[in-house]
């Protein structure tokens, strides 16, 4: 029983992470992680700067289909 509860909890936690990544809620966190791996490569953007920058990039190429 405890094992099943643990598994469910783990599944829900993964689902929640995946869901946040899917909808873009975790985009800034991913960016920070990536930036940490490339130390000194460029200045870290603030959440607002990153948000606007990623939107400008995303909507400059086909990203929605018919």
């Amino acid at each position, binding site marked *: 029983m405890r094992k099943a509860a643990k598994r469910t909890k783990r599944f829900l936690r993964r689902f929640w992470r995946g869901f946040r*990544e899917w*909808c873009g*809620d975790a985009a800034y966190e991913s960016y*920070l*992680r990536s930036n940490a791996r490339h130390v000194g490569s460029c200045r870290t953007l603030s959440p607002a700067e990153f*948000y606007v920058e990623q939107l400008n990039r995303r909507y400059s190429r*086909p990203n*929605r*289909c018919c």
Partner: protein
Amino acid sequence: MKRIFSIVVWLAVALLGAGALGAIAIHRGEPLNAMWFVIAALCCYLVAFRLYSAFVAAKVLALDDTRATPAERHDDGRDFVPTNKWVLFGHHFAAIAGPGPLVGPTLAAQFGYLPGTLWLIVGAAFGGCVQDFVILFCSIRRDGKSLGQMAREEVSERGGFIAQLAVLAIMVILLAVIALVVVNALKSSPWATFTLAMTIPIALLLGVYLRFVRPGRVLEASIMGVALVIFVVIAGQWVADSPYWSNVFTLSGLSLTAAIIIYGFSASALPVWLLLAPRDYLSAFIKAGAIFSLAVGILLVRPHVLMPPLTRFIDGTGPVFAGKIFPFCFITIACGAVSGFHSLISSGTTPKMILREGHARFIGYGAMLLESFVGVMAMVAACAMTPGVYFAINSPPSIVGATADAGAATISSWGYPLQPETMTNLAHAVGEITLWNRAGGAPSLAVGMAQIFSNTIGGPRLLSIWYHFAIMFEALFILTVLDAGTRVGRFMVQELVGRVWAPFGRRGWMPGILLSSAMIVAMWGYFLYQGVIDPLGGINSLWPLFGIGNQLLAAVALVVATTILLKMKKLRWIWVTLVPTVWLVIVTMTASYQKIFDPSSRLGFLANAKDLARQITEGKIAAANMAGTQRLIFNLRLDAAVTAIFALMVLVLVVEAIFQWYSILSRRRESVLHESPYIATRWAPNFSGAGHGTAVGDAIGDD
């Protein structure tokens, strides 16, 4: 033992699928339960994924999980982001699933449920999924290059330019036709117009919240936005009931056209964070929710399909659109089975985020299967209503008659009994003034969805709410495609004109932004206007034009894929992409020829123009209608020219490709493959993407 068990299980799935498909194909007489459609589709998809996609992955493409993907090589946290395969599947599906698989099958239901359903399943398994999968693979192997770049490198310089031009031309027609679907859905409907209009201030509010209050907190903003949207769907009823407000929001087709054109221009020219992006977030949540609810609703209600398997309109005399079952069933279904536009996504964002090559099968092939399933559900929703009602909603007044009595008599004479009161009662039940002549697919799909939803929750009492929820859902995400497409179109125009006049190509130059936005909006706006004033309803001419364009783009993608396979020395398996290419070229060329040259004035653009010109010379057109008729003649000739240009562009690319293939096979030219060099992955085999358990850096294995 395990292997035998696996074989038995897959054999059972295959037999069940074959049995269900057989039931759909052979069944006559009593209405068929929709569960047969669900079982047939799911079993076929499972077998296709398990066997065919595995074969393509192993034998044809030889996917290599030891090879570093662009996401690993260029990981920058922005464009190149290693992403968990389930999350990327969700991203990819949200990007490829547009209004096409909902509207196309609804329109193709005019032929009956059988041809459309079969093509949705077979076309997806052997055409659409293969295209998406192979193009995704090719782009992964080329650092996420676009279809145009791949065409330029692998086929020829001219091929790349043609592909780029084809994308822009097809995008213009796509934007016009989806805008027309929205106009026909909102025309004379104060409730629906109010609901959709209110999504603009809601999006602006979310835009400001996400930019200044809580930057990037998409989830909380979207929850707020969805709650507000549901509120305005309900509030729409009060607007429809108020004589004053109902009058304000009752708009004609031309007024709606002007409003949508202004909206498209604003969304393209305004900062993306203000209007476009928040609408997209809202749309993504509502789209996912509505599609999931439709699937659950069909499973719970298990409606009966009332449309016959084949209707009398397979002979080409259909009221919704003209043309015989071949080629127009395939052209009309379009995105639900094969969509050229998907190749832009498969060579756009997805290849830059994929974790391993092996995931391309699940994401490329699997997401298209899911899209096909959405198409099957739309077909079920459209065919679950009485055929008479379906034809009443989707036929233009010039064919069925302008009054309810005339319409009911015409439709009944076709063998689909309909009483005028049925339509009046249905319109009243869904809170509309009328449901007659609402061509475009959206209203009939909304009626079908509302009937399924209300049988699940709320009963007939909530039918009007569900109907307007369905209309809002369709219109919202159609407008999302419209504004995102207009913006991308703007960049394409800037790039093309920028080759001649450099300042125009600068993305931040305001006069360039305004001028290019106006140019792209004027292009699709004109086709939208011509669709709205078309006496045959616009859908009759524009949807086939869009279908031809879309399928031609798929042919372009498959030609590029075939060339790459040939260069990879996969001659033995070349049929995997060559067969769908040949099929698409035959279908689209036949459709293009018929749309231009068919002697029937309902089908052929030129015959229709000639017919109208003859009526003018014979003095049959009243002086008051003269200018309008001359405009119609011009529009028909323009449509013929656009169709011819589409066909010509693809023919040039096919000839270029055949020349390439011949040169490679006869060894006259060295076959040069423009793949990125092999670099072994440094990620541990259990690494499943950033944010999932281990961080990327932590998961890197020993060298």
